């Protein structure tokens, strides 16, 4: 295969990854790693480097739109970024001592979990009374809906913060946004309405990924020949996704995609178990 063929194929694959990632809310990174390792047989470390870049591109691109709409809770994001960035740095450190096969198995497990999380029931209810910690940290806020501004309060700040640290560790170790874990912390634990939790989670992914990306860049995980088609493809795909998403019913797509992702996850775990990475 020549460099040109590889670039064009990867560009197309990254475009699809960005498209599907934005339609399902999983982000482009989770598709990039299996695409590079299982299809193109690229070393998983290069795949992790590329996936981190895809996560940053996806997050920053989408966040620019959400922040303007006023749905993102910037204070909450900033507070929880303490947890995710510390986690990400720890994850990037652990990664050196973790065999690539173990990383593949962990990645597959997180993928299965993410697929399940995408299909779960979402929290639409805004909590009326928050916990003292949430008040003290000014985390309660309001967001625009069709029926006007809705204010919400949150609780279990400590538990949410702890889950965010774990999300950060996985993000640093595997190069993914860990969107599913972030939403679990905000949506199910802190009782934040899902529109706020998904946009705030997306907002945080860029910073979390950047925290470990600088370490991986220094370690030589980021190869220019792979980064180029991945960054451009994922961005174009995510852009298309954000244009067609409002006009389509993503439910069926979500089921199809989550089934597909589950198969990919099992293959990653199987290959990791058989030491093929």
């Amino acid at each position: 295969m020549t460099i040109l063929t590889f670039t064009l194929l990867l560009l197309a694959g990254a475009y699809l990854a960005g498209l599907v990632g934005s339609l399902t809310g999983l982000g482009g990174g989770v598709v990039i790693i299996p695409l590079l390792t299982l299809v193109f047989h690229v070393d998983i470390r290069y795949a992790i480097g590329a996936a981190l870049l895809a996560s940053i591109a996806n997050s920053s691109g989408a966040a620019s739109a959400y922040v303007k709409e006023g749905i993102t809770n910037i204070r909450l994001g900033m507070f929880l970024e303490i947890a995710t960035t510390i986690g990400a740095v720890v994850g990037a450190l652990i990664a050196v001592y973790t065999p690539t096969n173990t990383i593949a198995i962990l990645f597959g497990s997180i993928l299965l979990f993410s697929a399940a999380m995408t299909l779960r029931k979402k929290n639409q209810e805004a909590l009326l009374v928050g916990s003292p910690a949430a008040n003290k940290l000014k985390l309660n806020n309001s967001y625009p809906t069709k029926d006007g501004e809705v204010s919400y309060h949150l609780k279990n700040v400590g538990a949410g913060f702890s889950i965010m640290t774990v999300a950060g560790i996985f993000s640093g170790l595997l190069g993914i946004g860990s969107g599913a874990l972030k939403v679990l912390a905000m949506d199910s634990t802190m009782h934040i309405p899902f529109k706020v939790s998904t946009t705030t989670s997306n907002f945080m992914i860029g910073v979390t990924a950047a925290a470990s990306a600088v370490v991986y860049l220094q370690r030589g995980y980021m190869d220019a020949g792979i980064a180029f088609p991945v960054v451009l493809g994922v961005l174009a795909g995510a852009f298309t996704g954000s244009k067609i998403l409002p006009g389509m019913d993503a439910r069926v797509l979500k089921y199809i995609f989550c089934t597909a992702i589950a198969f990919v996850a099992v293959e990653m775990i199987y290959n990791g178990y058989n030491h093929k990475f």
Partner: protein
Amino acid sequence: MKNIFSKHHLADQDIEQFIGLQLRYGVLLSSFIVLVGGIVYLIQSGSMPLPHYQLFIGEKGGLNTGSAIWHGATAMQAKGIIQLGVMVLIATPILRIMFSLIGFILEKDRLYIGITLIVLSVMMFSIFGGLKV
């Protein structure tokens, strides 16, 4: 409780708009640089066989420090230009933290000035802490 007519809220809105724009232009700038570098890369070495990506060479591949990337990019080397775009992409969310910090300083929100400074120090530790080993 938050008063929507207060000055604080106005500052909040302004800084949110600004952060939105900064993220957008950061991504646009980095993808433009990556595109330019990518085109040069394909023109120069598109017909060459694929490098052995199944083998990880890591740091020996070079272009893993700011100065090496900058030298490569200013010498108009394709990979250097792409990596410069990659650096701009990674810097985009980091710059966002700095703008948030300015926003909180304008609002005189001491708690969040502190929180943002913590996040920023973790970032700086990650960049300059020599964690690559």
